[in-house]
């Protein structure tokens, strides 16, 4: 372990969390309905590395097109638009 950081243990003495290990934080995981546009502000992501993903939720039969949402980031604002299927939007940050 480096000289600084936090390490957390369970009752058995096992390490449950070690700040030496970089992890991605879930900023949000939210549902966006099809054909809608959603913008959300997360001040904490300003200037930080962000990864987004999406999972189709309750998708229509697979013989129809399921157009994914376009997810854009502008500083601390995440905007989701353009999808025709309900989707869970995942925003990760570190």
């Amino acid at each position, binding site marked *: 372990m*480096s000289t*600084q*950081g*936090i390490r*957390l*243990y*369970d*009752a058995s003495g096992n390490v*449950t*969390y070690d*700040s*030496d*290990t*970089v*992890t*991605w*934080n*879930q*900023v*949000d*995981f939210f*549902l966006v309905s099809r054909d809608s546009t959603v913008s959300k502000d*997360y*001040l*904490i992501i300003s200037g*930080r*590395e962000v*990864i*987004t*993903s*999406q*999972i*189709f*939720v*309750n*998708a229509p039969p*697979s*013989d129809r*097109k*399921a*157009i*994914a949402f*376009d997810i854009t980031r502008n500083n601390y604002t995440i905007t989701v638009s353009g999808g025709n299927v309900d989707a*869970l939007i*995942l925003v*990760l*940050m*570190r």
Partner: protein
Amino acid sequence: MSYGFLATNNNNQVLVSSDTRNLHFIQKLTTPFAVDLSSDYFGGIRKWRYRATVKTAPMPFFTMPTSDFYGVTQITQIDANTWDIEVVRSGTSTTVPELYIFADPRGVDATEAYGMIVYNEDGTKSFDSRLRPLVAFGASTVNHPSVPKATSNYVLSAKYCEASIDSRSGVFQPDANAFNSYPIIGAAAVKPMYFFASLAQSERESFSYQSEDDCDGVDAYGGCIGFGRDYQWWSWYWCFYRGGIRIGYDQIGPIEVTTHSSSILGLTQTANYQTYCDDNGCSEQFTGYTNNYTTYTPVENGSTFFGTSDDGYWSLATPFAIWCGNNDNTAAISTNVINISTNGYVTFGSGNGSATYIVSAVNPSYFKVMFGGGDRRAIALYVTVQGSAPNRTVTYRYEGYKNYNNTTGPADIKFEIRCYENNRSIDFIDDGTNWSGWTGITPVYGAASSTTQIGTLQSTPFNLRIAPGYVKKMQAGWIPHTFGCNWKYEKDSSFIGIDTGGGGSTGGSWPYSNETINLINNAVIIGDASYYD
């Protein structure tokens, strides 16, 4: 933030924050709840449903126990605490992936008394050390090629979609090379698990047409006298694909000649080669010379080995694995021993020093590169390791006499074998002299007991590069997901009288229509499942 909890590392990356929520381990699912589709056609399709119990939306990670493409195609909420996760995979293996379900800490209750909890300002948990937080080893994005199947034979039955699934299978099976490759991330994970939501979708369609004239009257001179009928059939066969990921191997050979300078004796001219690959393998074509004055620096220091000078060999441990490839992945060899004959050739798998094997495809029966081969006498072998892992090179410099009868005087043949750790390639560099016994073309033979010559090293202008083997990659390719057929029939006309048409016609096209959507950079996140077993 003005109050709360924030832990960052030396790179100012957020580890724990009361403004966000860490992902925590919820449960491990070892078997699917249901098998929605299992077909060995189209190269294999598997569609499974896993059922997770969690209070908030699950983030599923999956293992990839086979070399097929995997993806999570959708999540369905069954009730307040129940979620179904659809996982698709190409290939025919019966092995199923394991799913590791993560969610924010509101999704599960902890019972242990010890630990640390961080709360958001709304009073809900953002971090709970009693649960097992997600440790992501790496994250990247991938994209898919636009075409899962480039060309195909559209000859499928036009009548009522009658083509058997067997005949459709080859028409729609994704091309073997329909994938994009990316560097491996999270290589340190003991048991890698992947989060990848399949978004890319593609559709291919095959169209077939057929017409027939039936005569109920009298056939006469190709026509019909009396009562007759004209029929037409149209069938549209289709297949939908979804994007997936896999861990695969990119072929970097068997012979890959790239720009490389041979200037051991001052030659700085560089030959350019372009490697062309198709379904039958790869070949390189010489495209001309450029003078870039890149200097190849010979390696003349390092450890020195003498040993037997005539009809012997050095068997030396390599500082890192050297990969040698055949024409398929399965034949690739990873070895930590290189064998260099005093007669100038290199073998992997075992050593040999005989002069009689120099031009034989059969013996010695292991992967061998006959570069430098001749009935020679060695003076010494110099071995030098340069650089730091994982970007080391090891160079073996051979010096000797062209003719084994020579025993005195300076070396009149020198060559180097330089192995690269980072891309697992091997360079063979000669000194540009006219070697006795050098035929100008050096065969490279395949793996153990193989008599198949897998390539030749070009002799002009003595700058040779062989990159035999395969590099492990993250690959984004296609998984057949759904298939079917639509058709149309028309009894075109009936007639009484004389019809001079007769016969019929067939036709079709491939692809009749095709479309690929959602070609966007899509996240892949890698964790270590061994943390949660």
